[in-house]
């Protein structure tokens, strides 16, 4: 159970970062940390003791395989995470060009 708790703590560190940090890059970094911990959470669920990577070897078929379904979900979720991170980075570079600062509170004041 300790691995699941540590994984949830990692998720919480990301959530803490998003709530408290004022710097745009730090918010993006905390978002990707939250992402990483949810991928880890899916991989932990799919693990089976004594299991082998889910590659069927026609020579010796009888083996205990690790659960392939969470791995397929994580494969999709990783590329979704890349898509959201790319969108966020595009907005951050655009905001930096317009406002000249990464601090979200200054942006609020300058917005006027």
């Amino acid at each position, binding site marked *: 159970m300790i691995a699941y708790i540590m994984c949830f703590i990692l998720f919480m560190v990301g959530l803490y970062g998003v709530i408290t940090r004022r710097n745009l890059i730090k918010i993006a970094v905390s978002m990707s940390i939250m992402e990483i911990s949810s991928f880890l959470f899916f991989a932990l669920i799919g693990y089976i003791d004594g299991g082998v990577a889910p590659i069927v070897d026609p020579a010796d078929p009888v083996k205990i395989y690790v659960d392939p379904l969470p791995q397929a979900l994580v494969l999709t979720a990783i590329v979704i995470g890349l898509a959201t991170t790319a969108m966020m980075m595009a907005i951050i570079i655009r905001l930096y060009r*317009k406002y000249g600062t990464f601090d979200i509170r200054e942006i609020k004041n300058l917005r006027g």
Partner: protein
Amino acid sequence: MNPLIPLFVIVPLAGAFLVMITGRFLKELDKYLTSLILLFLVIISFYSLSTIGENLSLYKVGGWEPIDKVPIGIYMIMDGFNAIIVCIINLIGFLSALYSISYIKRYTSSNYFYALFCLMIGGMNGVVLSGDLFNIFVFLEISVISSYALVAFGVEKSELEASFKYQVLGGMASFLILFGIGFIYWKTKTLNIADIKEAFANGYDKKYYLFVQILILSGFGLKAAMIPFHAWLPDAHSSAPSPISAMLSGVFIKAVGIYVILRLFFNMFTVSEEMAILITTLGTLSMVIGVFLAIGQWDIKRLLAYHSISQMGYVILSVGIGMILISRGSKPEIAALAITGGIFHLINHAAFKGLLFLNAGAIEYSTGTRNLKEMGGLARSMPVTSATSFIASMSISGVPPFNGFFSKLIIIIAAVMAKFYLLAALAMIVSIITLASFMKFQRYAFYNKSDIKTDQKIKEVPFPMLFSMVVLSIICVLLSLLAIPDIRETILTPAVNILTDHLKYTTLIIGQ
């Protein structure tokens, strides 16, 4: 296995790529291609609404038959409830696409706009029609990412900042949903919604069940802008281009937020009393706080955005009352009435809120400002816009002949019969305050004389915008017919039955 269901998703997605490719060579084609695609979607959605009735049609993607009663592949489901939501999405989408034919002339690179618009419609159709939990998450991401880009379409300072805040909160909601899906998979080892209910049927730990429900509720609640998570809505909806804020406010928070909460909490989780009470309190809070925030606004779109939160509060309140009665197992017919009122108000809100945002866009198109103080006396120069906006304002504040009145009436009757007198009183008070706030909007925008001398003469908006506004106002008036019992039986009751008697959904899916 009717072959109509995948068309709702394939056509808009393939259309988006065609628009992207042709947009580079033939500049004018993308507008008409998008409207054609959405017209086709409107036709098949109304056809499927008329033929669906009580039964539930299932589409096994990839042709994977269930093995000893456990579904393997992904299922696409069309039943009474999501047929209504699909009709709302495609109809309002079609009218917004027509509206934006002339509205988008002010923005550059309009083919990106139309491609993203088709992707958003395809994503929402995918979310509403899918019966698989992770599939809902993937299509939710398609519609959410395209709405991030559409909110920041005119790359001005305030729009970029609003889109960034929307992305941060939306991203957090997506990770909460992903964690919730991981949690459900951890216990039930399956992803099909009906199969999860089967797996939950053989026993679950009370604390785990509450934690998962809170995770899912906060994830989708953030997409539905319920009260603790509403921070992104006023900025995002006011800085987006008007057809997009009409889509966001009228359709997006319903199809991606409220619909999924209802589907999961009725058809996947067994309704527990404390969750029902939590949802009802969140609904009342959204209703009351939304309207108080809306009174002090002078920017039209921000005023309308805050009113969206309070109107959504009505829907969540009435559905919450239905949930409480079901969880207590008492008076099922009042629960059915409350949920009918909620769904009826959902449909009405889509119609008149979409129309109000289109009016705000028309005012901004011809006068160039959104601030109520700098406007005045538009009734003479913009007759059609002021007429349609009068109809919409009267129906949102629940004035008798229009549709808003009937749905709020049903909600208040259900609250009174279920002995929640405080909630009924609050609903009435909020309705009166909404009326006051929209009287202010009408008086400042259309009827008092404009003291600021505007040099250029304000002329009416071009035809496509007028056409979609007039059609929406006709729909607003027609929807009030839905209150007549026998029409209500044919359309709303199948939706309510699929939600209330919870065994029907699973037996139909596992059975087929």
